[in-house]
């Protein structure tokens, strides 16, 4: 008998049927992964049987012989306490900020009625999930820990009461690439050691490859395909699965067709950025040191690195929206001045696109005004009628229909908002786009489309791209060359394929191993 078995489950919220005819099984010691685009109902499927969403559930759900559907919140609470553990996407918000790590862990251990654990036992639990200096950590508060450490504490808390099933809702999507593989490896280890069943939710097929035994593909609240993970990935039967697999960038993909680079366009020489410490305190924080890069016309350069490596700082300095402390930025051999001193002609050359598409649009403005904002400043020679015509044209360039003109950002999906942001960036015909994690916050299907759009725009307009990302596999689809960053320094540069084949610096090797 399976550890956890769902058959013919349906979920309704406020009268809407969101999930229908879902079935899956999780065996002890094995991992079943649910994958699908956002809004496909994967989180609802794994959380609702335990009463963690407002949905009403019907169907049969058996966990270790206990019927979750049978009724009674008492029973569900009991199952949650004894049999299941949960890990969520946002490690910071999932830990209570005002309780020290040790206290949270103690609470998690005692919830199933266990005796109060000793300090030594708690420290051992933290060591089990790979945290160093465990004894010291017990007294620390969540904000003192990094994202990866917090997620480890979450895992320690989720398995503290020795559950039989671990439900992990996108446990790695908020982490950067190299941490991702570490956390996945830890989950594998725990499974093998304790015979834990793992129900894993992810939108990223690449991250679960090699970890999941069973795969369930969901679309719009239904299961479209399921089976052994290796068979599904090797030979997907459904078109939707094929698209999901194709959307996930992989280092083994055939080399993409890229444009042919031209003359040198932009160069930075020993660029450095340091920030003053806040308040009256003396001293500086160095975010970027000695960064020298070269970018040609019609070329794409990837800046790859983990979080905090200074890649965004470099991008912002180049786009003229962040500080520069040392070094210089040259445009076709002429120095570009720093932030506030750039004139409009210089602004027109370089435009940025940001990670969070919704936050990069003013919530009070209509799409029409957002897109035309650069025109008003950078192209004062245009009449209002010409502006309106250009806005229409650029919206069709990014594949948005004309009725988007009067929409507000709140009514756009992530992919649509990012298209609007790209439209704003290209409307004044710049020559370089600085893309700061422009696809990382998007669904893989949508992200792949945005990458395609960028490739097309580069082909049509001869744009140069500076593609800042933590995902070297995604960068490979778009970029000719790559610069790898770590701790504010550029540690390796070269042709994309050459760097991937023969990484020299440990940071590069780690990034490549993670994708």
């Amino acid at each position, binding site marked *: 008998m399976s550890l956890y078995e769902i058959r013919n489950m349906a979920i309704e919220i406020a009268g809407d049927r969101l999930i229908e005819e879902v079935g899956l099984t999780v065996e002890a010691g094995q991992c079943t992964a649910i994958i699908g685009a956002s809004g496909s109902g994967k989180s609802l499927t794994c959380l609702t049987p335990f009463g963690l969403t407002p949905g009403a559930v019907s169907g049969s759900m058996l966990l270790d012989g206990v019927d979750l559907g049978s009724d009674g919140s008492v029973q569900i609470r009991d199952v949650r306490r004894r049999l299941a553990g949960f890990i969520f996407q946002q490690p910071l918000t999932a830990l209570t900020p005002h309780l020290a790590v040790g206290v949270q862990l103690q609470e998690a251990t005692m919830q199933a009625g266990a005796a109060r654990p000793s300090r030594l036992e708690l420290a051992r639990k933290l060591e089990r999930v790979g945290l160093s200096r465990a004894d010291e950590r017990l007294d620390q508060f969540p904000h003192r820990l990094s994202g990866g450490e917090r997620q480890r504490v979450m895992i320690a808390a989720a398995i503290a009461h020795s559950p039989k099933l671990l439900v992990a809702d996108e446990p790695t999507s908020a982490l950067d690439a190299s941490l991702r593989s570490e956390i996945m490896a830890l989950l594998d280890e725990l499974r093998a050691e304790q015979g834990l069943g793992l129900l894993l939710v992810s939108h990223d097929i690449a991250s679960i490859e090699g970890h999941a035994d069973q795969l369930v593909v969901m679309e719009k609240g239904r299961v479209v395909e399921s089976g052994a993970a290796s068979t599904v990935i090797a030979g997907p039967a459904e078109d939707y699965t094929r698209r999901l697999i194709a959307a996930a960038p992989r280092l083994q993909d055939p080399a993409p067709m890229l444009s042919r680079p031209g003359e040198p366009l932009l160069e930075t020489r020993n660029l450095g950025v340091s920030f003053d410490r806040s308040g009256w305190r003396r001293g500086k924080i160095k975010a970027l040191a000695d960064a020298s890069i070269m970018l040609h016309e019609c070329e794409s350069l990837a800046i790859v690195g983990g979080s905090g490596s200074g890649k965004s700082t470099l991008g912002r300095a180049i786009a003229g*929206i962040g500080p520069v402390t040392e070094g210089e930025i040259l445009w076709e051999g002429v120095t570009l001045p720093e932030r506030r001193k750039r004139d409009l002609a210089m*602004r027109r050359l370089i435009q940025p696109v940001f990670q969070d598409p919704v*936050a*990069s649009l*003013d919530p*009070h403005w209509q799409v029409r005004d957002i897109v035309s904002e650069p025109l008003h*400043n950078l192209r004062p020679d245009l009449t209002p009628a010409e502006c309106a015509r250009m806005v229409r044209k650029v919206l069709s360039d990014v594949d948005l229909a004309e009725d988007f003109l009067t929409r507000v950002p709140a009514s756009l999906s992530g992919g649509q908002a990012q298209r609007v942001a790209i439209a704003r960036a290209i409307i*004044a015909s710049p020559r370089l786009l600085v893309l700061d994690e422009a696809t990382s916050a998007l669904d893989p299907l949508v992200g792949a489309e945005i990458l395609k759009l960028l490739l097309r725009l580069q082909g049509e307009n001869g744009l140069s791209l500076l593609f800042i990302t933590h995902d070297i596999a995604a960068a490979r689809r778009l970029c000719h060359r790559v610069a790898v960053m770590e701790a504010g320094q550029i540690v390796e540069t070269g042709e994309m394929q050459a760097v991937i084949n023969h990484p020299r610096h440990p940071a590069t090797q780690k990034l490549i191993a993670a994708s």
Partner: protein
Amino acid sequence: MLKRHFPIFLVLALVMLALLLPFLLPWSYDQIDWEAVRAPAFSGSHIFGTDEIGRDRLARLAAGTRITLMVAIAAALVSLIVGIAWGATAGWIGGRVDEAMMRIVDGLYALPFMFIVILLMVVFGRSILLVFVGIGLVEWLTMARVVRGQVIALKQRPFILAAEAAGTPSVAIMWRHILPNIAGVALAYLMLTVPQVVMVESFLSFLGLGVQEPLTSLGILVKEGADDMDMTPLGLALPGGLLVMILVCLTIEGERLRDRFS
């Protein structure tokens, strides 16, 4: 709408009443009816009776409400303008300028403000202008802090950076991107400032430091009523009840707005 926002409609109705009553009543707030000193309620044309020197109580209540709310709204507007200007400047420029400006705010916070207002009154004599100045001096501090925090949070948002990259000048970014986005929060705090000011003004008047006779405010009416409460409890109950009602209604609505925006 009417049911959910009953408090604000109640206050609006009271304000309308206070504005219209002078035209409807045969008596003005400073007119003495020699025939009816200390008249009980519902005697002749005096619906709530008269006070100890024969002035119509309802007319005085309306006048008091007008003055109190006028002081409150004027002081709240001053706090809105000064607070937004100060806070937005500090937040936008940042660095040392921000530090210095906010330390000035902290310094002003630390002063025993009631004591200073009382001193001002004693030195310069009682005047309604001084009440404005005194109250306006303190009430903008909270607003400045709130606005500064909002501006700093907004400044790092990508859409502000995108506007800068699009060549929008700083002043235009401030007017067209930042101010509209903090308007909601500022409005919520404005709603919370009004009852605070009502309270302060009434307190000053109660101490005899507010507006001058024969002008009146709710605070003065409460004081007069309190002096005379063993004879005519109505004189205390009416302005007191009205004051509490206005304070509670405005606070409820203000809290509601604040919850919505933060």
